[in-house]
């Protein structure tokens, strides 16, 4: 089970998220580059926080270097990972350890997917052991889904129920790229064209353009800012190797007997221990949904239900916006947006912050106190998680 933390004593408890922003999200944003849309998100997130560029002394994300120069914020601390949930943990630890006071985490995607005869570039990484075999993200995640279906008898209808639920969250969200599309039933999902069996088109993430940014600072400084801070209760991540280079097998193992099929479980156990919480305490789960099946796997891996019980959990209606565990309430990457390689992961964190602030225009979960966030998935050999709270850890 690993190390457990005394509640209230984890360094992440010394930091807060004080600003978040998504720019407009669309299939195509004319006149923007990935960097220009990320900068727009940064401007909006700093404004949300009541801060300016002169306050920033740390950056995270693939564009961190360009952002430092754009914000004229050096000498600055730079996180060496992508702008996602893992970046929030890295920034939080850096702030808690005194490397920086106020960190901007940002990314964006625009004018990247230009050859529409091919799937989006981030879906088809080049590697000698995958590319000649026609592998791409849908196939990688399909191989994991098939293993689960074989092991537990998970029916295609359960995958379709996930896709319909999350896409319907996007359908009513005016900010979603796919707003107004739907509503969908599970039957609609199963009737959509097959992409990589068992995934139909409606089981798969969209691709789109947009920016996302988030600002973190010390809990102490957050108290002096005009906005409503959201607190980091815990966060961690699991990895088994590089994404999309080796067979994404269920049984891929490492040092312990926890296999890739349950990736994220160790991270979730650590995170709940840091937060002094259990899965039952979670009010809303902003889970990463690159493909419908991944939600079923994650709710089992994170302990929201038992192994092999995920299909019944979703078919019994427990992940809907007013259900026991509302999942991915803005439409996620299936419907809200998928702007590139990491902004869409940061958007799971942003949505969780909006839920805890009570500021969601659609699918606001009443009195949400604790939000759980995930990024990644077994098809990519990584899974990051966060627990965020409306109240700080005591």
């Amino acid at each position, binding site marked *: 089970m690993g190390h457990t933390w005394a509640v209230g004593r984890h360094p992440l408890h010394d930091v807060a998220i004080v600003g978040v922003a998504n720019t407009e999200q669309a299939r195509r944003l004319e006149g923007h580059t990935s960097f220009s849309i990320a900068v727009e998100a940064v401007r909006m997130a700093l404004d949300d926080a009541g801060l300016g560029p002169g306050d920033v002394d740390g950056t995270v994300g693939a564009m961190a270097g360009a952002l430092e120069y754009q914000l004229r914020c050096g000498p600055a601390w730079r996180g060496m990972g992508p702008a996602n949930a893992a970046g929030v943990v890295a920034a939080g630890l850096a702030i808690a350890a005194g490397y920086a006071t106020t960190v901007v985490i940002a990314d964006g995607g625009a004018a990247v997917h230009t050859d529409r005869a091919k799937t989006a570039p981030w879906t088809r990484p080049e590697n*000698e052991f995958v590319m000649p075999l*026609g592998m791409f993200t849908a196939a990688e995640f399909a191989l994991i889904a098939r293993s689960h279906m074989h092991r537990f008898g998970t029916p295609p209808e359960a995958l379709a129920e996930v896709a319909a639920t999350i896409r319907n969250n996007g359908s009513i969200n005016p900010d979603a790229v796919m707003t107004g599309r739907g509503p969908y039933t599970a039957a609609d999902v199963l009737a959509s064209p097959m992409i990589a069996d068992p995934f139909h088109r409606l089981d798969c993430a969209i691709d789109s353009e947009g920016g996302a940014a988030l600002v973190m600072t010390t809990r102490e400084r957050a108290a002096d800012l005009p906005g409503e801070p959201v607190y980091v209760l815990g966060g961690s991540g699991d990895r088994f190797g590089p994404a999309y280079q080796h067979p994404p097998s269920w049984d891929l193992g490492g040092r312990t007997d926890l296999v890739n099929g349950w990736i994220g479980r160790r991270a979730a156990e650590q995170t709940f221990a840091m937060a002094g919480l259990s899965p039952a305490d979670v009010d809303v789960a902003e889970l990463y949904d690159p493909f419908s099946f991944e939600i079923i796997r994650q709710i089992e891996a994170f302990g929201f239900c038992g192994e092999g019980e995920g299909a019944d959990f979703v078919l019994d209606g427990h992940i809907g916006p007013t259900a026991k565990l509302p999942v991915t309430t803005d439409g996620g990457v299936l419907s809200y947006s998928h702007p590139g390689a990491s902004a869409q992961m940061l958007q799971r964190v942003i949505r969780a912050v909006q839920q805890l602030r009570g500021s969601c225009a659609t699918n606001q979960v009443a009195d949400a106190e604790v939000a759980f966030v995930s990024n990644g998935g077994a098809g990519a050999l990584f899974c990051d998680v966060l627990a965020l709270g409306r109240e700080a850890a005591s």
Partner: protein
Amino acid sequence: MSPSGSGEKNASGVGTWLAPQRAGIPTPSPSLVSEPFWAGARAGELRYQWCEACGVAVMDPQPACPRCLGSELEWRVSSGRGTVSSFTVVWRAPLPAFQVPYAPAIVEMAEGFTLLTNVINCEVDQLKVGLPVEAVFVDIEQDVSLIYVQPDEANLAPGHDQLAT
């Protein structure tokens, strides 16, 4: 089983026979470590690495044994026999060069290593977890051969279906 590939057609007129790919798909750029694997493919051998000290079969090719980190890995030739542990059928390819359908699969090989490949020379409906398969070598273009698998007829014969689950 017809390698000429006139399987049943579905509503959109696409066949259901799983054929090998042809020239035009992205081809591997071998590294110093992986070159013996690709040379094996061209020679009609499925080569894998073996750590004598640990008795561990290694795939994908690595500079060292994942158990002892020893660099004394020996290249061996696989029997080519294995069992499908997972598969998918792709109907919308990432690049236009790929002919659909094709069937990426994870195969547990008899020697104890895992191979990512495609199942070919069968109908889509024949695919299942537990399917016994054997390696088949396909020349894609000059100096580029891929290692696929196809149903292992010998192990599909009556009396051998206990391999299937």
